[in-house]
């Protein structure tokens, strides 16, 4: 039998070990699932103070137009994703999806128009760790002449999330305090050059900070030195994003789901909805017009028992109508929360459903998402 490939390490691996993290394999990396205080404490701390996450396993890359024209690079990416890239302002960021020809989702990603002077015609991409090799191959194979993909494997990425994030980062880089949601800037923190965006995946206000791998540990420890900041592992990252109603690739969205089914129509700007010109545009435009056959909904089980990914969704009469794609205990909600796909006629808020957990049907209701309110600074 072949030896499994050794796990990769992020530039912050040694810091996690020093902090006493429980390390687990995730997307080929040895990652912290939790620190000694545990997932519940980490989750709540992020909602009430500020949590620091190592997300260096994610893929960071630049799409570069040789002619230094934003239009050139924007058009190249618009052929692969349904977001309006052309009308991004310098330093503006958007959430989007790499689409297959049938409109299924190959991955979700963040796209930023680089705003630094002298770097025109560049887009900064952040893709999922588990999909980065496939994404890069997919993108590379479809780029026109004059546009190239420059993967940045020598960068670290951390997220500082929670209501104290602004004050904490503001002490180190005052210009980040006034940054609006989904905008970015380049700052110096100490002697490291950082790219900071006001974004994240917890539903809280906060930032994602990209820096050179060799500067990462110093910055990580500087942020952790603030008493408002604690390190947060992948366990709480998952419960935070679930409560925020955000999709996890490979679970809530994949090649079998379209952005419309997944409720991501907000990420397809008006011009693109009308013009199309992205993979699967025919299906997606039809689903926008006629409504998709099934949709992703929030679900609240009525008891205390969590329903997890894979639980069958039925009508109260027992007819199978869908499947839970993410589910678990929501610490802020203080109860179980889930999301999954059901047919359009069963998607209205308050619709009674059953979730089959360990062979037993548990009563549940379609519920509004996010389960915990978003607190972005717009």
């Amino acid at each position, binding site marked *: 039998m072949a030896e499994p490939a050794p796990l990769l390490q992020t530039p912050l691996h040694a810091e996690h070990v020093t902090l006493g993290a429980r390390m687990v394999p995730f997307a080929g990396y040895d990652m912290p699932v939790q620190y000694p205080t*545990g*997932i519940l404490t980490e989750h709540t701390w992020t909602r009430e103070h500020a949590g620091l996450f190592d997300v260096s396993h994610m893929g960071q890359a630049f799409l570069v137009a040789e002619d230094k024209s934003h239009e050139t690079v924007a058009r190249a990416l618009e052929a692969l994703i349904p977001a309006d890239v052309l009308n991004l302002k310098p330093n503006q960021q958007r959430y989007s999806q790499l689409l297959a020809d049938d409109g299924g989702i190959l991955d979700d990603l963040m796209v930023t128009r680089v705003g630094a002077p002298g770097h025109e015609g560049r887009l900064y991409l952040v893709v999922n760790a588990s999909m980065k090799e496939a994404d890069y191959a997919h993108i590379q194979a479809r780029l026109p002449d004059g546009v190239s993909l420059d993967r940045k494997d020598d960068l670290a990425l951390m997220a500082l999330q929670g209501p104290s994030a602004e004050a904490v980062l503001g002490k180190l880089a005052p210009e980040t305090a006034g940054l609006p949601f989904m905008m970015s800037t380049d700052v110096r923190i100490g002697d490291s050059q950082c790219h900071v965006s006001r974004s994240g995946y917890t539903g809280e206000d906060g930032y994602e900070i990209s820096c050179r791998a060799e500067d990462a540990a110093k910055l990580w420890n500087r942020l952790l030195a603030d008493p408002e900041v604690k390190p947060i592992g992948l366990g709480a990252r998952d419960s935070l994003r679930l409560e925020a109603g955000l999709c996890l690739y490979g679970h809530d969205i994949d090649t079998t789901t379209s952005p419309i089914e997944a409720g991501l129509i907000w990420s397809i700007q008006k011009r693109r909805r009308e013009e199309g010109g992205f993979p699967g545009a025919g299906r997606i435009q039809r689903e926008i017009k006629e409504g998709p056959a099934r949709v992703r909904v929030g679900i609240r089980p009525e008891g*205390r028992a969590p329903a997890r990914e894979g639980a069958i969704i039925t009508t109260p009469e027992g007819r199978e109508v869908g499947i839970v794609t993410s589910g678990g205990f929501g610490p802020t909600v203080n109860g179980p929360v889930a999301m999954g796909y059901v047919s359009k006629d069963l998607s209205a808020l308050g619709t009674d459903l059953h979730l089959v957990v*360990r062979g037993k049907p548990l009563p549940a209701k379609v519920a509004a998402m996010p389960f915990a309110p978003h607190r972005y600074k717009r």
Partner: protein
Amino acid sequence: MTTRYTKDHEYIRVEGDAGIVGISDYAQSQLGDVVFVELPSVGKTLSKGDEAAVVESVKAASEVYAPVSGEVVEVNSELEASPGTVNEDPAGRGWFMKIRLANASELDGLMTEEQYQEFVKSIS
């Protein structure tokens, strides 16, 4: 009073003809924060190794197996309201159920405290 352990990290603390069943401190630390416990109904008859209860942490659900055969005579219904007790005091207030032993000789196949601590050391 004797306490015995299984390889699945359940304990049974025998008092007379019955035993209090719970999960070990090592098990609770591995599970992490417990957020839900499903207990059997009182009166249920279990065979050794049967799935007796379910314990869910934020991350995952795990089964608790009956360490011995017998009838469930009492359950710790406090765990339904405060499942975190399993983390705080697994050997005490965090117990799951009381089983009336059908066959006391089954205890001989379980580990003593000392053997269990050795076992934990060997796997951690």
